[in-house]
């Protein structure tokens, strides 16, 4: 293959500006991490809430939460991005719609974080539900028999155990958030994939570009993985579930 290699490309000056390609990639990394952490926060809060409510005694609430999960789980992430960014604002009143489309600060970032957060929350909700349902019914009964109210039973008995059971799949989910955040380039968030396309078009050094980007994504996901396994070790209850790993 007839390829012109240039490993110094990262430090080269970009035409017409004082930046280097490396500074483009670093800006991209910053946005990737910001979008990922923001949507992870949204996903954790909503995921635990919805997942818990799916096991609640009220049939109606549980069904509503099932509908929520199915809605976000059954539509591809890329399509959801386009829906939130291009379609939803068209249904707002004209003044508000124009504000969202032109004036709203950081609209790409907020849309992407919310969209990825909601998508991931549906997946976390499923894991939380599975975690709670995997506990023996005796746990719940014992909690209630001790005089705890139902919310107290969840807070002090069921959720702490369920959380520990689902930590391994949550780890994968946290890593997925970083990888899925690459879809945000489609609505114009200046994240890593976006900068990679920009850099490859400008420099024509595609192989060097995508190798660097691969490495940066790998590092992000790997740090997420190590962080979660640290939490897993710290929160382990000896003699309880998954004691030995």
């Amino acid at each position, binding site marked *: 293959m007839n390829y012109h290699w240039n490993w110094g490309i990262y430090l080269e000056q970009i035409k017409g500006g004082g930046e280097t390609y490396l500074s483009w990639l670093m800006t991209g990394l910053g946005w990737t991490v910001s979008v990922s952490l923001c949507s992870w926060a949204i996903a954790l809060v909503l995921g635990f809430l919805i997942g818990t409510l799916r096991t609640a005694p009220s049939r109606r609430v549980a069904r509503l939460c099932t509908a929520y999960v199915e809605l976000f789980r059954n539509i591809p992430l890329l399509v959801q991005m386009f829906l939130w960014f291009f379609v939803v604002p068209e249904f707002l009143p004209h003044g508000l719609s124009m504000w969202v489309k032109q004036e709203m600060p950081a609209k790409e970032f907020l849309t992407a974080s919310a969209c990825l957060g909601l998508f991931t929350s549906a997946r976390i909700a499923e894991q939380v539900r599975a975690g709670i349902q995997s506990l023996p019914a005796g746990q719940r009964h014992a909690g209630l028999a001790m005089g705890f109210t139902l919310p107290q039973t969840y807070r002090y008995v069921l959720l702490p155990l369920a959380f520990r059971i689902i930590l391994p799949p949550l780890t994968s989910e946290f890593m997925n958030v970083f990888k899925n955040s690459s879809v945000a380039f489609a609505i114009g968030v200046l994240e890593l994939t976006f900068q990679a396309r*920009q850099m490859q078009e400008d420099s*024509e050094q595609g192989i060097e570009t995508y190798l660097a980007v691969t490495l940066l994504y790998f590092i992000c996901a790997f740090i997420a993985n190590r962080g979660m396994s640290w939490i897993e070790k710290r929160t382990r209850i000896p003699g309880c579930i998954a004691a030995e790993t």
Partner: protein
Amino acid sequence: MKSRNRLLFCLLAVSLAANPVFAEDLTGTLKKVKESGTITMGIRESSYPLSYLDDKQQPIGYHIDVCNKIVAAVKDRLKMPGLKILLQPVTSQNRIPLVSNGTVDLECGSTTNNEARRKQVSFAVTTFVTNVRMAVKKASGITSLDQLNGKPVATTSGTTSVQLMRAHEKGKHLDFKEVYGKDHADAFLLLETDRAVAFVMDDNLLAGLIATSKKPADYALVGEVLNVEPIAVMVRKDDAQFKKLADDAIKGMMKSGELDKLYAKWFLSPIPPKNISMNFPMSEKLKELIRNPSDAPAEEYNRKK
């Protein structure tokens, strides 16, 4: 199995030995084409009207016609009238890797000839010139770059229009809010839905998007020319033999007036799929290039005076 392979191998060896003349003076792409009996054209799916798919999913366009002429010259040169033409759709992201790794022999799309790309590939003589300008909604009353201060301006990700706006003397002290679409159609949607007041891109692409939009009369091409870009057919680097063949075929069309006819067919008359004309008269720059063919890169057109 094994003996059959050996038989095939013997047949191959005999047939090669019987045909020793050509393979010697052919190099690079022509040698590869001769040996494989196929030539692969890289095509674009929506670069109107240079290279795109019609309603039967067949590639058509100005550069497709130019490339067919080059392929005809290849058939003549190799005396292979039955040469098989393979089509490979390409994108802005993969076109250069696919040419340099040998998947595509002749890229017939809308690629700008610039210095960064010439490190990886080579270009035939320039067959089209585009100017980077902006499309706006007529109702906005915008006619110049300096009216864009603080306004959202759309462009396509993977292009460098924003840098060009910043580099332009009128754009230096302005604060643009750039918004990005993932491809040209998405970026045009940003303008159409008022997320941006202007879309900065190659003027022929803008003219095509406007011509095929829902209300072509609502839009106008306005403002300063931010960059002049020569567009050409792309070939592999360091393959003087094939490049000369392509260049000679194109120069022949320029001399005979055939290229002017092709230009009129694709830029001035109604074209598929909607039978709308682009209405895009030939620029002075391209007229000059037809008189004096050149494969100079974009940088030579935009030197600061």
